[in-house]
């Protein structure tokens, strides 16, 4: 199983390295053809304006939306979260509106306001996540289908999940935090091979006796 990492711009190598650390092969995605055969996709941090422009220029929106609709997990960090949002405040046009959220870019201010903190993320277990926020966005509103995975102490939403789409405003890939990638890899493995004991399996020696 291979998981794609959108490699148009940003911290994509850090995501490939994090996937490698949990034993998953990450492949760089720059063109639509690179999406063939991947079981999930990571949208890294970077500059969302640049990334949106490059996604449009190279015709990546439709194949990524198809991949998501087929059920493959999509994981966005920081700029990746912005790119996945249905509404970006400031009237910027959404490009991969897979998350029913309203997101605000640079919500904490400029670089001098970038910060690190520990966050409770209950679905990942009791040990807190060390979260690095760099000129980070914030989720201002969520739709009914969206699960909130983490909030800051003041209640602001910084990690969400909607079905097979997961997004964080912070950077697990910069903090040596692998649990989000493990979650996404598990979702990707389930997508690639459901392994649900699917269907009735005939006895190996009695294959000819097909049920009517």
């Amino acid at each position, binding site marked *: 199983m291979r998981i794609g990492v959108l*490699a*148009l*711009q*940003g*911290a*994509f*190598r*850090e995501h490939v390295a994090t996937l490698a650390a949990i034993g998953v092969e990450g492949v760089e995605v*720059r063109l639509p053809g690179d999406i063939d055969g991947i079981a999930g996709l990571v949208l890294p*941090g*970077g*500059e969302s*304006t*640049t990334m949106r*422009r*490059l996604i449009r*220029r190279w015709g990546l929106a439709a194949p990524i939306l198809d991949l998501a609709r087929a059920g493959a997990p999509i994981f966005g960090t*920081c*700029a990746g979260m912005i790119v996945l949002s249905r509404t970006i405040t*400031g009237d910027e046009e959404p490009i991969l509106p897979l998350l029913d959220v309203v997101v605000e*870019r*640079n919500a904490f*201010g*400029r*670089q*001098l*306001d*970038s*910060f*690190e*903190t*520990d*966050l409770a993320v209950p679905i990942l277990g009791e040990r*807190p996540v060390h979260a*690095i*926020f*760099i*000129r980070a966005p914030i989720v201002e509103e969520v739709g009914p289908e969206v699960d909130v995975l983490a909030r800051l*102490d003041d209640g602001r939403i910084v990690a969400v999940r909607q079905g097979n789409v997961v997004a964080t405003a912070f*950077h697990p890939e*910069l*903090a040596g935090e692998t649990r989000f990638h493990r979650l996404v890899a598990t979702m990707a493995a389930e997508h690639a091979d459901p392994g649900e004991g699917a269907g009735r399996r005939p006895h190996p020696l009695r294959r000819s006796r097909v049920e009517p």
Partner: protein
Amino acid sequence: MTVETSTWATKKGLAQMLKGGVIMDVVTPEHAKIAEEAGAVAVMALERVPADIRAAGGVARMSDPAMIEEIMAAVSIPVMAKARIGHFVEAQVLEALGVDYIDESEVLTPADEENHIDKHAFKVPFVCGCRDLGEALRRISEGAAMIRTKGEAGTGNIVEAVRHIRTVNREIRRLASMREDELFVAAKELRAPVELVQEVAAAGQLPVVNFVAGGIATPADAALAMQLGADGVFVGSGIFKSEDPARTANAIVQATTHYDNPKILAEVSKGLGAPMRGIALEAIPEGERLAVRGW
């Protein structure tokens, strides 16, 4: 929960987010908007592009804070600004403005011929230029959270940039091939702290992001820098001294993403009009070369 700002991880992390991107020199808010629209990951606000600084001569200083603020207000991408080498008060002023990164830059006239700025003392992160690994590690030891190779700014001539990125990466490969007990002498020869030398030898790369700067004028120049191991590129005079800045800027952005795809490089290089005129290195007297500033 405790919240910490301006940590080493956030300082060098912003540079990590800029990787695979193009940082463009701009002198007006209008330029900044053109750069953002073309896909720049950040802009460098300065009063004159290096080609004009070179032509004008005299002392080049930090830009007017009012102009920097106008540029910060005009775009949503990070804004960097330059301080003179060793001029820590210019850096204090830029930090007070709230710029996202400070470039302690040889393109401006140095303010101190012995000391660089103590960059650990600042909350805002710094990028510094280098010509070789020793210079890069000295800047990192002073607190630089991002490095760029210097090239020769304002020339539109890639030759020095190629020399510098090749030198840095060759010296890293050399360290990575050494025995532990040889690293002490290597540190002495590089005139760099042994701890950083050991870290580079073990990782096979710099501990911070390294961009290429100085002389990039075409999409192919940007792709050459990337194929030689750059994490991204700075383009100064190359964009706004070209015939069609918006198209040139956009083409350089595309070339930086698809740096190892010659078909796309050919496609984006078509019909851009004249690039900046450019200067042969031999035509620049030794005393007017910018890359030798800083040590």
